[in-house]
């Protein structure tokens, strides 16, 4: 099946047209250029040739062209394993080159094949003779050539596919000898391929991707410190060690902190202020503020690394000159972080200088951070801005959930784990809302989120159209109408005090709905 389909493709793809199509024999007689094209079809055929006893039968028919003889062995390929193997091979080739597998593979093979072709002519008769012998040996184990017991066929095919793959790399020879000697070795190599082919391409894809993720994770951790570590590391091994420690800690600590802070207590203003202070401080220092901010639990070093550099920049300059080091270029990163040092300091600054600074200040900072830690432990979560935030009290969420569940017709309770899921969802929701509102406010060049932001956000929801269905008012749902519906009066009063002008506008547009709702 598969094999028959192969030969026409290459010809069509290469544009040889009808002449190539008819048979391999015809192609063999054609001009050299066409031969090259026809040879594309050969690989599968040659593989098949060595693979199965069936090749005997086909050989005599097409004495003129090898490719033809090879093609004519559909028998083995008909089995599911063979098809799978073909698929895998084709897919691999296709994956290797974006172009349709024929062309991509053809491009490769042509070069190899032309080399082969000359020996082939000599080897053909040899191959036929040997092939018969080898086939007899292989087939003798179980099924006869004609019978083609599936077991034997499978094994042979495996060998064949190996051959095919190897063909690309190796000249023809191995094929002939392989079925006997190399079967064992090849099987080991092949098994992964075969399993992958049978299961699906996904397996290979996953196997490829998995390492990538793992790999990407590592650099991401390192990347936080990379600007310093790599730069410093080039200069001194000692610094590199320090950097590694920091990197590891930074990677590990944030989660630790999250675990430790499992208990959330209601926020207290002092906490909040502190966090803000920290953020402000760090922003002034370096961009990495987020990471370091999270670290404080165990990580004194992180904060240390950054803080001392800027803080002690004046001190370094004299030292730098004392210790001239060749590593100017590698330290570009250090220069960035320690721009404050001054130009001269940046160039000649030794990694050791930085090291000393770090060591000195680590202790100081540890003392500082130690004082702050207990306060931070109370917080539950950390937003991406490094601000701790509580989650909504579970009672509120549960009340809302139950009421809305009842209104929507649920009879049963809400299971505790469902409530957890809801809490999670509400956390995500607030995160999303926060992001959106921030985007709106930023767009308006404000640093404060205002009602107008929230209104634009709510207007943006396609939801309101959707909600028309199950809110009884047929007309447009405005945020104001919704507020009327859902909010208690105290809160509504607050809302009404908010910008009167937009409210009026809204009333005009959605007046009907409002009236109905209110009454």
């Amino acid at each position, binding site marked *: 099946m598969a094999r028959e389909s192969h030969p026409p493709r290459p010809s069509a793809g290469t544009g040889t047209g009808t002449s190539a199509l008819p048979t391999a024999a015809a192609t063999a007689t054609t001009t050299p250029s066409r031969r090259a094209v026809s040879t594309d079809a050969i690989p599968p055929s040659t593989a098949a040739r060595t693979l199965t006893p069936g090749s005997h039968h086909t050989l005599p028919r097409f004495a003129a062209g090898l490719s033809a003889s090879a093609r004519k062995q559909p028998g083995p390929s008909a089995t599911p394993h063979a098809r799978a193997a073909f698929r895998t091979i084709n897919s691999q080739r296709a994956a290797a080159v974006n172009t349709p597998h024929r062309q991509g593979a053809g491009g490769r093979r042509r070069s190899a094949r032309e080399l082969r072709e000359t020996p082939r002519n000599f080897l053909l008769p040899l191959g036929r003779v040997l092939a018969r012998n080898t086939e007899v040996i292989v087939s003798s184990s179980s099924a006869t050539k004609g019978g083609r017991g599936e077991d034997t066929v499978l094994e042979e095919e495996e060998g064949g596919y190996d051959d095919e793959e190897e063909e690309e790399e190796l000249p023809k020879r191995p094929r002939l000898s392989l079925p006997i000697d190399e079967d064992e070795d090849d099987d080991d190599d092949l098994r992964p391929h075969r399993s992958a082919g049978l299961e699906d391409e996904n397996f290979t894809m996953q196997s490829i991707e998995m390492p990538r993720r793992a790999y990407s994770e590592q650099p991401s951790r390192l990347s936080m410190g990379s600007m310093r570590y790599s730069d410093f590391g080039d200069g001194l091994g000692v610094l590199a060690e320090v950097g590694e420690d920091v990197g590891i800690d930074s990677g590990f600590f944030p989660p630790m902190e999250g675990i430790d802070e499992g208990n959330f207590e209601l926020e207290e203003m002092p906490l909040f202020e502190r966090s803000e202070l920290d953020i402000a401080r760090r922003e002034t220092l370096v961009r990495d503020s987020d990471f370091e901010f999270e670290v404080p639990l165990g990580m004194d070093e992180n904060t240390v690394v950054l803080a001392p550099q800027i803080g002690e920049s004046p001190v370094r300059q004299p030292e730098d000159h004392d210790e001239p080091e060749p590593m100017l270029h590698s330290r570009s990163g250090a220069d960035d972080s320690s721009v404050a040092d001054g130009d001269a300091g940046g160039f000649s600054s030794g990694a050791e200088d930085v090291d000393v600074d770090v060591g000195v200040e680590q202790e100081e900072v540890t003392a500082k951070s130690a004082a702050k830690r207990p306060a931070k432990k109370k917080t539950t979560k950390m937003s991406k801005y490094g601000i701790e935030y509580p989650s909504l009290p579970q009672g509120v969420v549960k009340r809302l959930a139950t009421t809305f569940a009842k209104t929507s017709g*649920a009879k049963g309770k809400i299971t505790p784990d469902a409530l957890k899921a809801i809490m999670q969802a509400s956390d995500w929701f607030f995160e999303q809302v926060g992001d959106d509102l921030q985007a709106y406010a930023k767009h308006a060049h404000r640093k404060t989120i205002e009602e107008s932001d929230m209104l634009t956000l709510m207007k943006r929801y396609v939801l309101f159209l959707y909600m028309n269905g199950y809110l009884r008012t047929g007309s447009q749902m405005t945020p104001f109408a919704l507020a009327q519906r859902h909010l208690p009066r105290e809160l509504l009063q607050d809302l009404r005090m908010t910008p009167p002008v937009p409210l009026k506008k809204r009333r005009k547009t959605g007046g009907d709905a409002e009236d109905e709702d209110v009454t």
Partner: protein
Amino acid sequence: MAPGQKLYPRATVKKIVKAHSGCNISKNVDVMIFLDYMLFMQTLMKEATIEAKQGGEKCITSRSVRKVTGDALAKFKG
């Protein structure tokens, strides 16, 4: 929602949003935000109820909630 009771802790909502947005928050936005949150909960629970019914569950389970959460969040994406 329960009349005599405080509907929600305003300060908490403010803090949450402030943490996520990194911006200051004007005085009464949190009301709107909470209104939005209520709408979200309404959709979420409605969908979850439907999902639970379709799944033949007696009460709303985490499975149905989780299944629906993504859609509900997407609906309220600005």
